[in-house]
């Protein structure tokens, strides 16, 4: 403890610290800092000290409030409603982590309920990242992140085949144009081997050019001296994956409840008994905490205060599809500058320029430590950083949209996946930041293992669900079909003959498919995530009224009740005409 105190005093002499180290080697920091950056820096420093497993950071900046959710009023609201459900497994959070776990656990005879504070799946970090299924070469060897990343990457093939979401196994390449940088490639290669990355190779210039036709097209080919080739890199639309997982879980009996934030965890004699949500009390002996940036708060409710999430905001810009990606793979020019950057010990992840399976270029993300978990604002500075992270200056004119997401980072900057040693039945799946998306199948598998082991120990091993169907049906994507196939589809179901989203060529049929899916969308953005309607260059200028109309009709709701992104965000405030919304029958 003394050594810890000394080290922190040395690094931050002006801060009056109070420290506490518990028997789990969790270090709690308290005191006052001069800035949020300092709060985070101290937390990182402390977490890196020998003898510290993780950090609970209660350092504050005078005059800088850290907004808290009003759990008390949510709690009293929920308690008033009493017990509304009694389940075997309660999963908190419907991001990629929660949906993945729900999908895997649905193979057992378990009553599964997923509660989500927002109105839809994938509304947190899951929808706001680059969609990279990383090979796992960049993670620190020996970390849980590294192991699960590599394992998850491999398992994605099966997930995509069973669940029918697009997985583009494009591969990644880091190439050099100066032989002086061979050591950098070698270093990366050795790290990749240590992590068990499949298929990683060091290749010479000629082979690199063969693998990446973009090098020839952009005229760099003659200068390429060699490259590290990572064939296992893949791309997904991350919200598409989460939706697919959720739908399959729901088909197999899992229930999803939205607009259902958790306000308290109930325990009886050191064991989980249930949770108080805004919509009532849910009894359960097993609670799996996948609450993203709020996971630390949920864990504390369960009596396990052993980590702190400090949100790290990332801004990403999406470019017009007319701006074609320069490369066929995810290819990066490894320059001296890039190598210097990687040694700067920054925790930020993500290559500057990336693209999606639908061929939009993504720029970013940036990285900014912020105190407010709910702050998803963008700024000119963050956007400039995101656009600057590429090989060349990207014109602002190609941008169709930019947005932000918050990484759920703890101070150890590694995953926390464990049965809580403090409260039995409470499983933390926390601090899932990058490579959380890539690791998702492996994370789900690990949690499945934790649950199975615990159940075994209790004398009630998990029973397989004989009716479990791992397959999710393929839904037609009109824009990817040939003219003949499109014609056949329309003949079969005329709804596919009306194009609603002109920019992305999304049909009414696809929107209706989404509205009638097992986890139906309840807002305009929810439809956007499932169908792509509204993701194009006009950003819903043409299709939004049409999508709104379909949503209102399907849900039997007044147009003024339809929201952009869940409770509190109606698009229209009031009807101004007696025949509002009524049109000639179509």
């Amino acid at each position, binding site marked *: 403890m003394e050594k810890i105190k000394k080290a922190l005093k040395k690094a931050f002499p002006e801060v009056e610290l109070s420290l506490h180290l518990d028997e789990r080697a969790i270090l709690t920091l308290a005191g006052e800092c001069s800035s949020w950056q300092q709060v985070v820096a101290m937390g990182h420093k402390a977490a890196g000290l020998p003898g510290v497993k993780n950090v609970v950071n209660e350092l504050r900046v005078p005059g800088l409030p850290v907004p808290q959710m009003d759990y008390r009023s949510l709690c009293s609201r929920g308690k008033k409603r009493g017990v509304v459900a009694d389940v075997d497994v309660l999963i908190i959070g419907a991001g990629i982590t929660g949906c993945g776990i729900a999908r895997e656990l649905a193979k057992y005879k378990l009553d599964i309920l997923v509660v989500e504070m927002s109105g839809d799946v994938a509304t947190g970090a899951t929808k706001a990242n680059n969609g990279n299924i990383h090979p796992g070469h960049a993670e620190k060897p020996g970390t849980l992140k590294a192991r699960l990343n590599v394992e998850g990457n491999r398992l994605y093939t099966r997930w995509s085949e069973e669940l029918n979401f697009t997985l583009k196994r494009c591969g990644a390449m880091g190439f050099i144009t100066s032989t002086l940088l061979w050591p950098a490639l070698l270093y990366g290669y050795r790290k990749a081997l240590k992590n068990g990355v499949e298929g990683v190779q060091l290749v010479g210039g000629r082979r690199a050019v063969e693998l990446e036709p973009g090098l020839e097209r952009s005229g760099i080919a003659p200068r390429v001296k060699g490259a590290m080739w990572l064939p296992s890199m893949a791309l997904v639309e991350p919200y598409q994956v989460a939706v697919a997982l959720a739908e399959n879980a729901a088909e197999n009996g899992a229930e999803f409840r939205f607009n259902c934030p958790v306000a308290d965890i109930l325990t009886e004699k050191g064991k989980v008994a249930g949770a108080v949500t805004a919509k009532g009390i849910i009894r359960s002996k097993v609670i799996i905490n996948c609450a993203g940036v709020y996971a630390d708060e949920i864990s504390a409710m369960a009596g396990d205060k052993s980590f702190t999430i400090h949100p790290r905001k990332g801004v990403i810009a999406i470019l017009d599809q007319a701006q074609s990606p320069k490369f066929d793979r995810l290819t990066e020019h490894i320059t001296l500058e890039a190598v210097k950057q990687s040694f700067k010990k920054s925790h930020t992840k993500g290559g500057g320029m990336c693209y999606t399976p639908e061929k939009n270029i993504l720029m970013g993300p940036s990285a900014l430590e912020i105190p407010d978990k709910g702050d998803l604002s963008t700024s000119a500075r963050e956007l400039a950083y995101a656009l600057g992270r590429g090989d060349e200056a990207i014109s602002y004119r190609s941008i169709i949209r930019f947005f932000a997401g918050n990484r759920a980072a703890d101070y150890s900057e590694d995953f926390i996946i464990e049965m809580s040693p403090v409260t039995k039945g409470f499983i933390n799946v926390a601090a899932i930041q990058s490579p959380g998306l890539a690791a998702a199948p492996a994370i789900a598998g690990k949690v499945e293992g934790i649950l199975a082991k615990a159940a075994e120990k209790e004398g009630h091993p998990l029973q397989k669900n004989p009716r479990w169907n791992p397959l999710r049906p393929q839904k037609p994507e009109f824009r990817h079909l040939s003219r003949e196939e499109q014609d056949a589809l329309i003949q079969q179901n005329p709804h596919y003959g009306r194009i609603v989203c002109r920019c992305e060529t999304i049909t009414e049929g696809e929107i209706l498919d989404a509205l009638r899916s097992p986890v139906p969308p309840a807002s305009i953005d929810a439809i956007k995530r499932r169908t792509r309607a509204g993701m194009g260059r006009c950003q819903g200028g043409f299709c939004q009224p049409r999508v709104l109309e379909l949503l209102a009709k399907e849900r039997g709701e007044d147009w003024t009740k339809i929201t952009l992104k869940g409770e509190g965000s109606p698009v229209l*405030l009031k009807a101004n005409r007696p025949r509002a919304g009524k049109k000639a029958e179509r």
Partner: protein
Amino acid sequence: MKRSNVDLVIIGGGPAGLAAALKAKEQGTEKVLILERNIELGGILQQCIHDGFGIHRFNKRLSGNQYAQLFIDAVAQKDIAVKLDTMVLEIRADKTVYACNKREGMLELKAKAVILAMGCRERTASQVLIHGDRPAGVLTAGAVQRYINMEGYLPGSRAVILGSGDIGLIMARRMTLEGMAVEGVYEVMPNPGGLTRNLVQCLDDFEIPLHLSTTVTAVHGRKRVEAVTVAGVNRAMKPIPGTERRIECDLLVPAVGLIPENELSRAAGVEMDPRTGGPLLDENFMTSVPGIFAAGNVAVVFDLVDYVSESGEIAAAGAVHYIAGRLEQKKSDRPVKAGDNISFVVPQRLGKECGETTFYARVKDPAKVATLSCCSGEELIFKKRCRYLAPPEMLTFTTDASGTGALTVAVTKGAGKR
């Protein structure tokens, strides 16, 4: 798949497409087909319930939909095929058009000539780099117009409008008349963007303040708009630190420009003019792809629908010539240059024997007293004294531009002595 041959396919049944269809029919084209994605003809005019349409063409003050109805009625009386609720997916350089609808499925149409009349889409808040949150309550002016005028809903109660182009001005008035509060109109340029008559009839008459050289830099509100931040801008249109103000509102209406909707055109290989955002056109309003013509806002953003209809007629006349094989030998390689104080001219190139040609242009900077001139090579072929020229007010003139040299259209200060 339904395959058919058509003489003339017109993509878009708005004012440009309707005028083109009538002209082509009048000149004897047999199979004329309008493909319209909406459930009714009229294009954007259907949501323009304000008046001021048709002053030049009909000497009347009609509302947008009234203007459109004149053409819609005329089309109904002629043997012009119309497919509504039909979206064009692809146009090929060989003039094959793919479109689909619920009733017929996929259509493969082989046309002798095609007229592009798809109009524009609106520039978005993201494209003008408005930062902050992304709540409900940010709707472009056209979208607000649609919700209010067509669907009968108010998308807010207290609005801030960014952009003083005609659409922004019209919506300032419309929202006020419908009972909403319009806090103000903010314009990033030092001069307003819309027609003078709209400044008077939409802002002055309703005492809605106009703030020039000011822009919206951020939106605030996690679920719905709660406020925006505005800031003064310098000559380079960059926000000036320290001039930020927070304005409470629940609706931000970006009215920040129209972008000609040329995705289909580009995919067909049509060459574009970055200055207009539309295709490079010749005196027949034909694009770089033989037999593909363009008219209306997809060619260049007009301000008066009367000119849009006129452009449709020019394109149709050209298409008729083309179908008859009369444009075979013609080469339109005489460039039309934008001279002094002209930001663009349409058409951008001419043939030697182009004859009476109609030109459309805009000035870069306002001019109180000026001379509009057009020279073919060294020869002055057109001159006109103009007053109160401004970028929002499009210039048009018709003159015999036959000749061999390149053309230059220019606007010079003063009454001119030449």
